[in-house]
């Protein structure tokens, strides 16, 4: 359960506070996979960052008892001068994992990078980077995975593999997904949050949320 109680978030700008969320009360159930919908700048990524604990609400509280992944976006949190393997090691270390070897090999295999895994991350193409960051997150057992447009890059075969991998995690985990790809959202999610007009509404049905989103 991830509970938002009275959460407000604004960014100070020259024109006064710009509210992204205002007095949001919301409960995200453990067994639902959530699609986050909204136009550009509506606060989808901010919402994800709030859930991920790397940004904080201006007012209110977000409470959760789950292990939540870092918000997975393209090449976020990767040190470009380190190799793929060294980046995995760093992430293992901050998660307190002692036996890194297994995770390293898993990521190497899953990401299909081959020898590039031993090269600095800044030599990767954007497709490789997305494969890589997706593989890294799959190497850890979180309760909730936060994904920000991560599955929209990469070749068709890999996309399929990603969806299978998420499917395997389903038994023990749920996902919160930001994407502009409606088919993907329909396939992967069974609930949605629509961000519009400074509000966030929870929808039990993805189709309904998508319909509302498209008629905004």
């Amino acid at each position, binding site marked *: 359960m991830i509970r938002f109680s009275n959460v407000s978030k604004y960014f100070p700008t020259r024109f006064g506070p710009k509210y992204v969320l205002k007095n949001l009360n919301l409960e995200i159930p453990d067994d639902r996979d959530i699609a986050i919908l909204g136009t550009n700048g509506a606060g989808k990524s901010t919402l994800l960052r709030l859930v991920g604990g790397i*940004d904080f609400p201006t007012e209110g509280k977000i409470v959760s008892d789950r292990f939540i992944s870092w918000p997975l976006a393209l090449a976020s949190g990767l040190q470009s001068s380190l190799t793929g393997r060294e980046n995995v090691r760093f992430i293992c270390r901050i998660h307190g994992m002692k036996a890194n070897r297994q995770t390293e090999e898993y990521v190497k295999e899953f990401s299909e990078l081959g020898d590039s895994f031993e090269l600095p991350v800044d030599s990767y193409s954007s497709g490789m980077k997305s494969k890589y960051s997706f593989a890294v997150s799959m190497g850890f057992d979180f309760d909730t995975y936060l994904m920000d447009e991560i599955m929209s890059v990469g070749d068709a075969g890999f996309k399929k593999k990603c969806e299978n991998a998420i499917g395997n995690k389903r038994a023990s985990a749920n996902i919160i997904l930001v994407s502009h790809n409606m088919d993907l959202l329909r396939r992967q999610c069974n609930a949605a949050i629509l961000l519009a007009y400074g509000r966030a509404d929870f929808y039990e049905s993805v189709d309904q949320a998508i319909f509302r989103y498209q008629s905004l």
Partner: protein
Amino acid sequence: MKARSAFSIQRDVIFAIFVREMITRFSNYTLGNIWLVLEPLLMMVLFIVLFGARGRGAYGFVEAPVFIFAAFLPFRTLWTATMRQSASARGGTKGLLEYRQVRLFDVFMARTFIEGGLFVVIGVILGLGMMWLGYDPWPDDLLLTLGYCAVLWLFAASFGMLACMVGSIAKEIEKLVSMLTMPLMFLSAVFFPMTIVPQKYWVFLTWNPILHAMELIREGWMDNYTSPVADFYYLFGAMIICLAFSLSSYRLTWRRIVAK
């Protein structure tokens, strides 16, 4: 995944950043991580040769190279490097803060530990080298010297942290701090003992806590040197005040700093 205590999370994170900083700092250089030690080492050797050759025996109470060693090493590694690394912690580590375990404070801690470690490593290497050349470079009162060094080190770390916090409001502070480094070398009695400064000028210099640290370290290092101005309580007080300010400003601003 297993829940960890706050302490063990912080320990893991600091260790991870420590390793990462060590790998990345000189990764683009041909000689790689050797530069971590080589850069300050070369600088020290240069200064020791430069000043040592010029002022041999000028200090009376100790050979010139040992004098420079005892003063420039703590100043260079414990003050300048530690302070600068903390002050610039916000810049190069944005990517790290994408992980919820990692906080800016861990970056400060890891960088401070690295500089402290470098101080010891470079000190031992240079000391052994000077011993080989026939000098007696080691501190006469090792524990006392290290104690003074630790206070200077903490002062530098908290000053750098404060500069980083204030720098997040006004970027000009970073410029100001880097401009400060050069004159501070002359204001802190690094290349001369306070005994050669006429008494009427002491009042212009003794406001500077680093000068007290340099003089105290010198006292601990060389038995037959007694500083006319050194005041441990002044240095310690300055360190405590600076630490209190930096910690409270960190507590007040860190959330604003991580917000995009």
